[in-house]
Structure formats: structure tokens, C-alpha cells
């Protein structure tokens, strides 16, 4: 019994030692945990607090309303409206084809919708939502909403859409927005604006929409929302409202624009009208036009093909990018160059035999009037558009002197107008040829004969309609060049405060007023009886200074006669017309080009007249169907036959 008890006590003692060791292990391991907790919760608290906040808080961008584009009277050219879209996030959808097929049972999905979806999808990441249908009506939206549970990864969204209520009118001027592509993203990244485009899908692609992108877009707002692990917003913590984009107000008048575009009828061509005193663009026409609404959500391939492959090239912004030989509209500037160089000042005159020859050469540079104009001084040379006079003047001045003078009027360089013109890349600078240029371009010397034809605006010389209008405006403004621009005011969308865009003097050309007067007189006489555009000036009620022009589309061989009736329509001469009015105190200067319109006075002139009539007198053309060879009705007897002067220039 004693031994047993001893044994028992011994065993119990031994057991308690072991328990003691166990307690030690328990304490040290719990101490390890306590140490771990103090490390995580006390020492590293800030770190984990931040991680937890990052987990739960997400910044959701709020897209600002894009600014409106308005004409000078407040007529809306571009605005926004809310509409429902149905969007698919491809990454969240198992079978895309099946899903789209199921959706099409609820709301109509056209083949165009499918094509657009495919196109946008190729350009975006699989976790970005892509619209399968836009502009859902209330019934369609409701019908989908009821069945929403069947379509994980498909969302109905309310989005702001850009709309151009006037459609085709002035589309080259207004431009359009389109979905942001990789190139846009790169540009935004380079300019440091990428963060402002979080949530934005669209960006200005052309026209004013592109040039004024910064002002129109506005500043993106943000909402701090608490999200759960699935990314669903639980509640809003704080928000910074977006600042809507500024509205831009044009100097142009949509009614004037409509009259100008209608006046072109079925003709292709361009018109630019500028206020010479301010540089404000009053009208900007490129014919034919297109509907910018087609581009907003990605143009489908059918429409794109139709526009892009059309022989009429509706997508070309002609005033900015179309280049044409200036033809006889170049003559007033050549005349002024001569006068300023001290050559051909009145009473100097020539006897015009109907052609010009270089000394010692047989080649005849023909006048448009084979019999010649008789005695011609510089003023008359402008009025009747005497080629022979300008052949000789150009020859005597030399190509360098001639081009360096007319360059002051904006030829051969970019105007810097505020349209579709980022970095000046889109604008065509035209061409003022020089011997160095020819050497560089063709590796050939300059021939004297090439100088001769530059005198009448032919040869290598190329101008854009915008340059021609600007040159006319500079002349009308006696040599003071105002920078051309379409926008006159920028309006803060929130406060309604309008900020005027001050006119900018680009250049001041030193000119002798007497010389300017001689050229201007010659141009005024153009629209008076005996001038090449007498019919354009008839019964105007204000005086018009103008110059007609014709630009050859194909070369005529030395012994060939240009015959309108045998020539393909698209090879007919281009008709040009420049003018400013009222001649004494000009408020409008313009240039019109009618492609394959043959004669400046008869085709392009009437268009210019309609524009000036409305701008100066508020006169709306009596009938839009006025035939191109007819003159608007007046009180005096209307000449139905055009005098020979107007068929040539």
C-alpha cells in the first residue's frame, strides 16, 4: 500500500512536471500570437487601414455634359440628349453569340448593330462594356429590364448622346465626335489629359468638335463610392461634381449657311465668307456634305463605303484641304504686286494682239479672246481679265518677286483657322511655286514660260478656297490681315457668361493706297456692265468688287480648242469667284469654287450674290430653283443671254 501510494505520488509529480512544460508551451505560443496581433494591429495599422480603404472605396467618374455648338443667333448645331443603351461586357458573358441571339428576341438588334458591336469590341478590352443597341425607347428598355436577371454581363445604361439637329448643314464646319480609339488615347496621354477622360467614350474627331475639344469636353467629376467585393456600389461617400464643357458660339448664321449650301444645287465645290475687319468666318461651305450623326457611335461599313468611295468626295473638307489653281482670281494680287514694284502704273497700257510671246520664242501664250482686247491699262486688265497683260507683267517681275509679294496675302501657307486643325496638320497650305521648289520637287530647272502662266493663276500655283477668301479679305481690308476663325464667343455653360474671342491681326502689309485703289476700281468694274461678272452686280443695291476665274482641270494642247460639249463633265473647268461688298466699306469677303462649273461669272458668281444679298440686305432668294445661268429677278429687263465677257475671263 505504501509503495503503491509512493508510486502514485511519484507518477503524479512526474505528470505535473510534464503539465508545467505544456503550460510553458501554451504561454509562449499564445505570446507569439499576441506579438503577431500587436504587429498587425498596432505597428502596421496604417498600412492595413489603407489597404482596407482601397478595398472598399472606388472612384467613379461622372462624365461632364459636352458643350453645345450654337450659331450666332443661338440656333443649336450640336447638343446632347439622354438615351438608353444596352451594353454587354464580353468578359462576363459565357456565350456571346447566344446572348445576342437571346437579346434580339426581346429588343430588335439589326445587322448594323451587330456589325458595330463587332467593330467596337475589336477595339476594346473584354472587361469594357460595348453597346449592342443604342437609343432604346421606353418600352424596349422596360422589356429588357424585366428580363435582366437572365442576362448576366448585360446592362442597360443611360447615356448622353451627341446629336446634330441640322444634320448635313455645315457638317464640315461643325465636325463630329466619335468613340475614343487607341490613337486618341495616346494623344491624351501625351497631352496629360487622360485622367480627365475617365469614363468618357467620345472625343471630337473633326471640325470644331475637334479643335475646341478642350473647351467642349469639360472637367470630369468624381464620386467616391463604397463597393463590396463584387464591385457593386453600396453607398456614396463623397462626390465632386463635373464641370460641364463650354458652349461655343459661331460667327456664322445657320440661315446664311443654308442659303449658301442650297445655292450650290447639285454642284460640288466650296465657299468661304469672311468679315474682313474681324476675320470672323460668316459661312463655310463644302459641297457635298454628309450627316455627322452617322459617325457618333461608329459608322457602319455600308454608310462608310458610300461616303468614302463616292466620286463626289463628300468627306473632303474642301475649304481647308481642296486645292485648285486660282486662275484669273489671282490677277488682282499680281496686279498689286506689279504696281507696288513700280511697274505698269497708269497711264501705261499695252496693245493686246490676243497672245503673248517670249522674246526670241515662237510659242504663243493665248488670251482667252483670240482677237485681243485692244488698248488695255492695268485697271481694265482686271475688269476684262486680259491674259496678255498679265503674261507680260509676270515675265517682267520674275517668279521670285511675284511669289514673295503674294505670299503676304496668305497664299502658300496655312491660315491657322480654328477648325479640324490640331497642329495645323489637316490644313493644306496650297502651293506658290519657286525655282528652288521645282528643283527640289522635280529635279528640273525653272523655265521662263512657267513664270508667264503664273501671271494668270495657272501652272503649279494651287490655293485652297479658304486661302482665296482670306486673300480677298486682306485686300478688302487694305492689307491688314485678320486671323480667320469660326468661333466668336465662348460661353460658360453654368454661369452663361460669354467671353468674346478678340480679333487677332496676323499681318499688316505696307501698301501704297493709290495702288490699292487702282486694283479695287478694276474689281468694282468687274460687276458693272462691260465687266466679266456684270450680271452678278446687276440690281444689287450695293456695290460689289469681284473677280472671276476659271481653272483648267486638264491641259489643252497648243493647237487644240477647248470644247465644252465634247469634254467629260468631270474634266470641265472649275469656276472661281472672289468678291467683297459693300465695295466702299466691306463687311463680307468671299471666295466660291464650283468644281467643273466652267465659268466663274455665271456659275460661282450667282452663289456669291445670294450669300451677299442675305448677309447685307437680309434678302432670301425668291426661288431656290433659280437656274444657274439665270440672274435673280430685278426691276429692269433681265438679260437671258449672257454677254460674251461672262463666258470667259
Amino acid at each position, binding site marked *: 500500500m505504501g509503495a503503491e501510494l509512493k508510486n502514485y505520488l511519484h507518477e503524479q509529480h512526474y505528470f505535473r512536471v510534464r503539465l508545467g512544460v505544456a503550460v510553458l508551451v501554451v504561454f509562449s505560443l499564445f505570446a507569439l*500570437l499576441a506579438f503577431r496581433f500587436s504587429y498587425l494591429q498596432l505597428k502596421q495599422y496604417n498600412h492595413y487601414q489603407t489597404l482596407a480603404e482601397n478595398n472598399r472605396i472606388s472612384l467613379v467618374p461622372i462624365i461632364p455634359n459636352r458643350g453645345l455648338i450654337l450659331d450666332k443667333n443661338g440656333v443649336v448645331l450640336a447638343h446632347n440628349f439622354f438615351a438608353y443603351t444596352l451594353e454587354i461586357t464580353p468578359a462576363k458573358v459565357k456565350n456571346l453569340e447566344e446572348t445576342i441571339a437571346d437579346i434580339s428576341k426581346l429588343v430588335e438588334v439589326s445587322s448594323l448593330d451587330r456589325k458595330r458591336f463587332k467593330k467596337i469590341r475589336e477595339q476594346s478590352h473584354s472587361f469594357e462594356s460595348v453597346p449592342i443597341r443604342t437609343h432604346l425607347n421606353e418600352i424596349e428598355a422596360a422589356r429588357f429590364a424585366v428580363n435582366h436577371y437572365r442576362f448576366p454581363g448585360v446592362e442597360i445604361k443611360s447615356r448622353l448622346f451627341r446629336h446634330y439637329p441640322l444634320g448635313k448643314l455645315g457638317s464640315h464646319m461643325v465636325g463630329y465626335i466619335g468613340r475614343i480609339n487607341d490613337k486618341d488615347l495616346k494623344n491624351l496621354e501625351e497631352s496629360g489629359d487622360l485622367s480627365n477622360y475617365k469614363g468618357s467614350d467620345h472625343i471630337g474627331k473633326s471640325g470644331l468638335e475637334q479643335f475646341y475639344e478642350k473647351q467642349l469636353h469639360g472637367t470630369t467629376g468624381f464620386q467616391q463610392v463604397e463597393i463590396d467585393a463584387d464591385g457593386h456600389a453600396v453607398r456614396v461617400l463623397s462626390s465632386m461634381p463635373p464641370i460641364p464643357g463650354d458652349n461655343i458660339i459661331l460667327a456664322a448664321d445657320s440661315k446664311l449657311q443654308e442659303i449658301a449650301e442650297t445655292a450650290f444645287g447639285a454642284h460640288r465645290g466650296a465657299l468661304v465668307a469672311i468679315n474682313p475687319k474681324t476675320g470672323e468666318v460668316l459661312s463655310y461651305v463644302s459641297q457635298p456634305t454628309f450627316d455627322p450623326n452617322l459617325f457618333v457611335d461608329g459608322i457602319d461599313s455600308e454608310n462608310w463605303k458610300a461616303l468614302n468611295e463616292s466620286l463626289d468626295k463628300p468627306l473632303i473638307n474642301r475649304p481647308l484641304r481642296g486645292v485648285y489653281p486660282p486662275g484669273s482670281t489671282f490677277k488682282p494680287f499680281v496686279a498689286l504686286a506689279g504696281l507696288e514694284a513700280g511697274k505698269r502704273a497708269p497711264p501705261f497700257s499695252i496693245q493686246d494682239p490676243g497672245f503673248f510671246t517670249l522674246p526670241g520664242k515662237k510659242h504663243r501664250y493665248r488670251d482667252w479672246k483670240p482677237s485681243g482686247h485692244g488698248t488695255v491699262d492695268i485697271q481694265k486688265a482686271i475688269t476684262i481679265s486680259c491674259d496678255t497683260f498679265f503674261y507680260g507683267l509676270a515675265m517682267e517681275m520674275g517668279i521670285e518677286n511675284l511669289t514673295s509679294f503674294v505670299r503676304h496675302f496668305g497664299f502658300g501657307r496655312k491660315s491657322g483657322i480654328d477648325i479640324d486643325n490640331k497642329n495645323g496638320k489637316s490644313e493644306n497650305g496650297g502651293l506658290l511655286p519657286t525655282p528652288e521648289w521645282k528643283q527640289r520637287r522635280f529635279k528640273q530647272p525653272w523655265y521662263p514660260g512657267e513664270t508667264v502662266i503664273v501671271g494668270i493663276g495657272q501652272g503649279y500655283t494651287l490655293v485652297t478656297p479658304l486661302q482665296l477668301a482670306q486673300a480677298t479679305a486682306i485686300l478688302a481690308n487694305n492689307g491688314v490681315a485678320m486671323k480667320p476663325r469660326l468661333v466668336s464667343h465662348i460661353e460658360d455653360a453654368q454661369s452663361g457668361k460669354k467671353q468674346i474671342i478678340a480679333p487677332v491681326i496676323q499681318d499688316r502689309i505696307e501698301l501704297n493706297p493709290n495702288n490699292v485703289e487702282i486694283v479695287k476700281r478694276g474689281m468694282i468694274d468687274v460687276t458693272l456692265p462691260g465687266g466679266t461678272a456684270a450680271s452678278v452686280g446687276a440690281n444689287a443695291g450695293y456695290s460689289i468688287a469681284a473677280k472671276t476665274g476659271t481653272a483648267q482641270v486638264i491641259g489643252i494642247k497648243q493647237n487644240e480648242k477647248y470644247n465644252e460639249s465634247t469634254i467629260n463633265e468631270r474634266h470641265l473647268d472649275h469656276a472661281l469667284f472672289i468678291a467683297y461688298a459693300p465695295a466702299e466699306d466691306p463687311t463680307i469677303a468671299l471666295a466660291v469654287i464650283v468644281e467643273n462649273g466652267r465659268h466663274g461669272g455665271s456659275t460661282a458668281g450667282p452663289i456669291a450674290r445670294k450669300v451677299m444679298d442675305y448677309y447685307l440686305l437680309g434678302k432670301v432668294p425668291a426661288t431656290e430653283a433659280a437656274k444657274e445661268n439665270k440672274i435673280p429677278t430685278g426691276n429692269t429687263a433681265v438679260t437671258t443671254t449672257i454677254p460674251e465677257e461672262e463666258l470667259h475671263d
Partner: protein
Amino acid sequence: MISKLLQFLFKHIDAFLMTCLFFALLTSLFVLYSASGQSLERVYAQAINMGVALSVLWVVANISPQKLERVAFALYVLGVLLLIAVALFGSISHGARRWLNIGFTQIQPSELMRIAMPMMLAWYFASREGKPSATNFIIAGFLLAVPVALIMKQPDLGTSLLIASSGFYVLFLAGLSWKFLVGAAVSLLALMPIFWSMLHDYQRKRIEILFDPTQDPLGAGYHTIQAIIAIGSGGATGKGWLNGTQTQLDFLPERTTDFIFAVFSEEFGFLGNMLLLTLFTVIIIRGLMIASQAQSTFSRLLAGAITLNFFSYAFVNMGMVSGILPVVGVPLPLISYGGTSMVTLCLGFGILMSIHTHKNLVAN
């Protein structure tokens, strides 16, 4: 009459241990309410689990240790047979064969082993006279290895290791020689590099992720990372009950079961953690005191092993949730949601109370 009823109810209940359990279970209900997204349904379900478990505790507490000693061997054999049955006919879920369908319900025999294993070994050592010999330990080691191997095959590495440790505690308390313990530890460390070199690359990768969850933040490491963020962001005093963002916004996985400690930690902070650790320590100390005062070899070995087993579960769970141990799928005792583990735990506490309240009878 009432005093008789009270005596009937509380005669074999250790008031001190019961109070501790009561606080732990109350905490469980509150944390569960928050973790389940304020689902009273979940809380009721857990309360019912607790009711069942406490009934089991009461019944077991009223059974004398001698009776328990007598069924130990039978229970062990039953457990092993059931494990074999699982291996042969068990149903597979989540890639593991752990459950056995017995007609009206499914049982998880490995849970039974959590109690049967220490009972069996305690019975084995109690039935040997005098100081256990090396042979005794070898036989005990074999008795330990069979069910552990079966559970490991399921596969359920976490449970098999914990059951192995519960058996090991009996061996340790029964006087396994220090020489052997040190020798085993050294050879284990020595074998580690050899074992490592035998693994495939993907297996090594898995183990690396176990110890460094940031290597796979969206995959296997996601649970641990989110849990650590929850704990760390709790700070000194916590975000407050129902205010844990990691919990309430669904960032925490498995937050009513294995990761419930992260919920508690996020909402009650370092202070809460210390209180919980203290409560667990008190429960463990009380259990070891019961073992120390136990009057038979069987009782003291069993009481010590059950208490240390409770410690293992608590330590491994808190260690894995706070990122110092690999994730092995072990619930936090008394706090995690789940009926089976709650019943097993209370069964253990019932045995402790039985040992404590029956000792005077033995002395007499």
C-alpha cells in the same frame, strides 16, 4: 424540491469552466450575427447547435470516468471501422472523401476520432502497470498512426495532424522520454530538405504560397491576404461591432466558419484579441488544473490531452488567420459556426467536468 432539481442539474457541472464557456459562446453569437450579414437565422441555427452540444456536455459530465474508461477501446475500434468505411463507401465533396452516409444523416468519423484517440491512448497507458516501457510507446504509436493515416488519405491534412497531436499529447504526458522527443525533432528537421527535393515544382509552389500568400494574391493567397487586412485594419480597439468593412462588404471569405477570427479581430481590435486570448488561456489553465488534480492515470492523461487539443485548435486557427501558419481548414473552437465541431468540443468539456466532479467519489 427546487434545490434538488438544481443539484441534479449542476452536480457534475464545473461552475468556473461553465462560466468561461458561456462567455465564449455568447461572443460566438454576436460575432456570427455580424459575420453572417446580420442574419438572425444563422444565429438561431448556431444557438440550436449550442443547445445540442451543451446537452451532450451535461450527459457526458454525468457519466463517471470509469465508465468512459470502459468504452474507450470500443469507441476507438468503432472509429477506425468507420474511417475504413469512409475510405470504401464515403461520399466525395470538394475533392475529399470525409463523410459517411448512415441512412438518416451524414457523419464525419474523423470528428469522433478527436475524442476516441486520446481516450484510447489514455486507456492503453492506464492499463499498463508502472512506468511505461519503450514497447508501450511503440504500440501506442501504432494505435495513433492507423487512424491518422486513414484521415490523411481522405485527404484531410489539417484534421489528421490535429488528431495526431491529440494522441501525441497523451504520449507526452505519459512520459515519452526527452531523448526520443529531441531525437525525433532533430531527425524531422534533417529530413526536411530531402523531403523538399522529392517534391514536384507545382507542389513546392503550393507550399510556398501556404507560407507566403502574396505570391498568389488572387488565388490561394486571397483568403489570407484579406484576413490579414481585416485584422490589421482593426487597429487597437477595432472598427466596432457590425462596422468591419472587410466583413460587411464581403471581402472576407469563409467568415462565419474558419475565418471568423478575422471578423472578431476587425471589429474588436487588438483589445478584443487580448481578451479572447485571455479567455482561452483561462479555459486551458482550468483544464490543466483538472488534469493535475485528477485521481487516475486515465483521467489525468485524458483531461490533459483534451485541454491541450483545445489549445491546438485555437492556436492553429488564429495562427492561420493571422498569417503565421498555413491555411489548413480548422475552425476556431467555441466561436466558429458549425454543429459537429461544437458537439465534439462540448463532449470534451463534458469529460473534463466528469473527471473533476467524480474524483471525490473515487477517493472515497
